[in-house]
């Protein structure tokens, strides 16, 4: 499962992994703003930021190819909206949409794959993110595993009885079968999620996730956040200066 792999990556021990989550969140916000507001020389800016992120992954000793592939999960959604823009006669915006979506996902992945989720959520909490949002994020993340595992078991059970994706597609009612399987998957996931929630309540869970780590923002974190914020800004300024202003 993708999330299990990212979870494993987040347990690394590089310099980037050891940075306080608030420093990484701060740098990420600056990066995303610099990217989202870039218009002139977007290709240069995007190339520079992509190299910057790739260096980040290499520094954190997270497999670059795997991370690039996983960040691509955002592309199907981005491409749908890009096609709408293209059809509306704005191909420039369509291309920008795809580039910015991919780079944003890649940047978020760098933070997520270098910060264990409970620590990241604790960092978000300390930067003032509403508790409700954090709770939803934590449950969503937890239940992704649940749905993934249920789907895996159902697919194995179906395969054991001779089912295959090809047979499904060749069957007369593939949509009906797929809808039935999806309904069963969500019913099973819901039941399991209820059991998990009950087990959490039994251990005194009161709607607030605690983390086993104490966070400490030290001088090296301050240096990191400063450098990690200035570099993307510098990349963008350099890319924009390299091009003449349109007349």
């Amino acid at each position: 499962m993708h999330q299990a792999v990212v979870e494993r990556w987040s347990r690394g021990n590089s310099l980037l992994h050891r940075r306080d989550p608030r420093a990484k969140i701060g740098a990420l916000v600056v990066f995303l703003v610099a990217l989202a507001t870039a218009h002139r020389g977007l290709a240069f800016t995007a190339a520079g930021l992509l190299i910057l992120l790739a260096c980040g992954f290499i520094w954190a000793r997270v497999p670059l190819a795997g991370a690039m592939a996983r960040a691509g999960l955002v592309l199907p959604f981005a491409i749908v909206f890009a096609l709408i823009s293209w059809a509306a006669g704005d191909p420039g915006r369509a291309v920008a949409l795809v580039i910015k979506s991919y780079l944003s996902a890649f940047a978020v992945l760098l933070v997520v794959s270098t910060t264990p989720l409970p620590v990241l959520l604790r960092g978000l909490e300390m930067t003032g993110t509403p508790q409700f949002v954090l709770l939803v994020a934590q449950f969503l993340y937890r239940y992704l595993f649940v749905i993934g595992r249920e789907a895996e078991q159902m697919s194995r059970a179906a395969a054991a009885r001779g089912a295959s994706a090809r047979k499904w597609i060749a069957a007369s009612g593939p949509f009906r079968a797929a809808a039935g399987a999806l309904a069963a998957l969500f019913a099973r996931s819901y039941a399991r999620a209820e059991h998990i929630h009950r087990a959490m309540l039994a251990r005194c869970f009161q709607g607030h996730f605690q983390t086993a780590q104490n966070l400490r923002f030290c001088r090296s974190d301050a240096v990191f956040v400063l450098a990690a914020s200035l570099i993307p800004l510098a990349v963008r300024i350099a890319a924009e200066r390299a091009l003449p202003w349109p007349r």
Partner: protein
Amino acid sequence: MAPLIEVRGLRFKYEDGTAALNGVDFQLEAGETVALFGPNGSGKTTFVLHLNGLLTGEGTVQVCGLPVNRKTIPQLRRKVGIVFQDSDTQLFMPTVLEDVAFGLLNLGIEHAAALSRAHAALETVGMARTASRAPYHLSAGEKKRVAIAGIIAMEPEILVLDEPTANLDPPGQRSLAELIAHLPQAKILVTHDIGFAQALCHRAVFFQDGVIAAGGTVEEVVSRLDWDFSVERSKFRP
């Protein structure tokens, strides 16, 4: 001395109208280990979920002298630790140590102390070596031990184990029995495993159709049962 658990006339219906408990009377004394037998769907698990307020029905439930109600639920969840049948539902944190510390942190225990108690609990169940591993990489027996560590770390007065031997191989069952026997708490074991109950329990009760149909020593209860797993129904023979 007052019993640790005293239940009188407990009734409970699920939202779909299924009557799961139809008037259960039960007592657990300090230091006692009791087996709950009974066919699937007879109300055993529903019953134990009432002991720390995860479900609430009609009737009276008193645990360590406290009535089970909205106000007392936080205290009761410290006093009654439930180890669920499927360990996967109980283990959800990224590492074993964090999972064992989950309940302690919820109790408001300071981080360093919580981690130290979590380590001690893992030592008790012989799983200290797995502290930094992801729970989903463990075997069924290891998961069960970690799930137990997560509960005993909270130092409950009563331990409830729902089908503790489910999915365990015979050596795993034996080693789990040894572990449970050494835990000092009063215990309730929901089980179908007669040998396991005989090894650990002072007495047993038999659930049928949402009531306790029989009680006594494990041998007495077992000798009066027509235990027929082939139809998944155990009929009590009066």
